């Protein structure tokens, strides 16, 4: 699998190993493609659609598409930038995201990406949904208001027997993440911390840990998201 391939992103010559997912191959070449649902190393699931690019003229998600030789990728065209911006706006309009008092502010990837894409007022009407906060789990709180249903927790956090602690429930606009009550009660603190850490927004919160790191010293407070890999 170590075969090298040449491809282009926005006409820039890139090189990577065959079969690597485009989003990671782009990062190797100093190009940032925004994602909210992807975690490197875990089977991708193209849920948020934010990493949508055009490969040989067709829309596809960079997190699920392996690179191959002579692939032509369009990443930062005005059309794609606007598509991504509208997906971010959709997420804000669909949930209740109040950054000023959210525990995740500054570490939140949705917030950071919104800044990067200069989101001000969404073009879509806010739906102001009425959603629950589940506080009954011993180590975690699940705030459905902020959940963007990216599936990270579902894919990355399982118990030792491979059973799901987080799973989808229902479908359509009624889709939610449910937390397994029995398993959440025997979850290790490390696993709980991991779940909170990989949540790109403030939907999974570790109890008793909010604001341990002060605002101003958080991940995206100093440098915008993506700049760490851009050349």
């Amino acid at each position, binding site marked *: 699998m170590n075969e090298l391939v040449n491809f282009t992103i926005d006409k820039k010559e890139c090189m990577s190993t065959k079969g690597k997912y485009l989003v990671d191959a782009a990062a190797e070449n100093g190009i940032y493609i925004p994602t909210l649902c992807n975690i490197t190393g875990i089977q991708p699931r193209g849920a948020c659609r934010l990493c949508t690019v055009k490969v040989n003229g067709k*829309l596809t998600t960079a997190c*699920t598409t392996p690179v191959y030789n002579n692939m032509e990728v369009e990443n930062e065209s005005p059309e794609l930038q606007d598509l991504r911006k509208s997906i971010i706006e*959709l997420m804000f309009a669909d949930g209740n995201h109040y950054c000023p008092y959210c525990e995740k502010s500054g570490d939140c990837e949705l917030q950071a990406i919104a800044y990067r894409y200069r989101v001000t007022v969404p073009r879509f009407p806010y*739906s102001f949904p009425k959603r629950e906060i589940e506080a009954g789990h011993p180590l975690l709180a699940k705030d459905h208001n902020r959940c963007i249903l990216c599936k990270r927790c579902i894919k990355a956090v399982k118990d030792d027997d491979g059973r799901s602690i987080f*799973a989808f429930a229902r479908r359509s*606009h009624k889709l939610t993440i449910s937390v397994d009550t029995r*398993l959440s009660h025997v979850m290790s603190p490390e696993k709980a911390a991991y779940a909170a850490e990989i949540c790109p927004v403030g939907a999974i919160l570790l109890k008793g840990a909010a604001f341990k790191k002060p605002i101003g010293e958080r991940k995206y407070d100093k440098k915008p998201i993506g700049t760490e890999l851009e050349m």
Partner: protein
Amino acid sequence: MINSLNSIINKYDADPTRLMDILIDVQHKYDCISDEAVTFLADKLNLSEVDIEQTLSFYHFLSKETRGKYTVYLNNSAVAGMFGREAVAKAFEETSGCRFGEVSSDGLIGLFDTSCIGMNDQEPAAIINGTVFTRLTPFRVREIVNGLRKGLDPVDLQDVGLGDGNNNLDIIGAVVNNNIMKIGPVLSRDYKPGEAIRKIIQMSPEEVIREVKHSNIRGRGGAGFPTALKWEFCRNAPGSKRYIFCNADEGEPGTFKDRVILTELPLLLFEGMVVSGYAVGAEEGILYLRYEYKYLQKFLESILKMARRMRYLGKNILGKEGFHFDIRIQFGAGAYVCGEESALIESAEGKRGEPRDRPPFPVEKGYLNQPTVVNNVETLCAAVKVVLKGGEWYRKLGTHDSTGTKLLSVSGDCRFPGVYEVEWGFNVSQILEMVGAEEVQAVQVGGPSGTCVGPEDFNRTLCYTDLATGGSLIIIGKNRDLLRDIVLNFTDFFIEESCGSCTPCRVLTVMMRDKLQKILDGKGCSKDLEDLEDWGKLMRANRCGLGHTAPNPILTSLKNFRHLYEGLIPGKRGFDTGFRMEEALAEGRSLRLEQLKLQDHE
């Protein structure tokens, strides 16, 4: 309960990939899948409770709460609405004493809406505990509900007479009509069971694929992928086992041709699966059958049994050494998206029917991660004829790039709704003449996911390069309110049936619907029309065909019937010119009132 749950689990070898079958059996036995059952199943299958609920809560016909001793699923497709659904629904509510979405207080009757059940040529129709009732009227509803109250079984209430053809057999016994209106090579009466199998076992699998390739036949589900290529890719993909799926999940509102094939020519279909299995090198075939057609289960199983007896299925088929193939039926449980091939595979593996990312394609990594072919019912039937009569014969039918015939499911405002097998290349006007439709306002070609065309497009032809269709043709007369009765209904359908995974599909379809409602309420402005067009384009970012086509009812009607939208915009205004103070403040006021009440209470 424990004993019977155990026996259900054991029936499927406690295999979590058979979770769909297990849940369907539990639901069938207890009218619901209770918390206790969920916990029990989770422990026995080594899954968590949320794993079980993830699948359970995805499907329309599975439920944690009881849905009544008799559960009425009344079709809410647009065509049902055209033929008096509202009065029928009202009669159900009055006689049952509960609203839709509820169970009557005595627990006897539950009333629920459901997406198209494949009876569009005999609407309004409903399924009551697996028994189909067609051509309902308020009078019939009162008879049925009174009968149920008297303790009669739904099966005993079919006293209006059974349908035609095999519907009349005891083993089916359904008040469903085939309404076969035009016969072609696929539906023809000259079918002799086993002939194609006898022929292919004299050929190599590669020769079979070559013959099918020569016919140029493409998938009949709507996407139109070349069938032989699919078989070839699957045959050549590395894997320890291969699988043939027949996609009998026809859920596109207005489609019912597969139901007719399953009723009249099941052996033809199974023979098609055997042919496909031989070509691909698969030993296992799975018929993924929509739950709405569960009334055909016993019949289909009896046909499978017969096929095994005739040695069309089983080991060393018709004496061909090493040629093994058998078929089982896998039921869905109410989800349109499972008609998408990768969602169908997920569902057959016991999971929620969420489409997969591609690559890899199912032909490389499909069912249980093995190379898998998913073919439409009609495709497999046509393949049998191709094998028998040759690819050269087949490609002379139809047009250059759309060879062969297509089964159309015709419904709506016409005199002769039903199934028509026609060669590709007919134009819309010819079809309308054929089915007896005059005074036509619009034709919905390909169901809600297709295109809504008006008279200026009636000269366009049905083929993959112009008006592609999986077969649903809904005719909408001039007297209909196109936007309210059709477009809004179709958009609601997509909202309900989205798997919810992709953000635009989950969120934007609802917003587009709200915007359409705003326009219908006379509150729209021309900016709203631009928004609908712009927002519709974003839906291309979704993963699957459902997500891509969900805005089509609005987009294609906006393109072809723009005057209807514009006529609803008062004074042709360009933007919202004001707001209603009372409405804007209503929520704040109600919260304030609640607060005052709480203070009083304290």
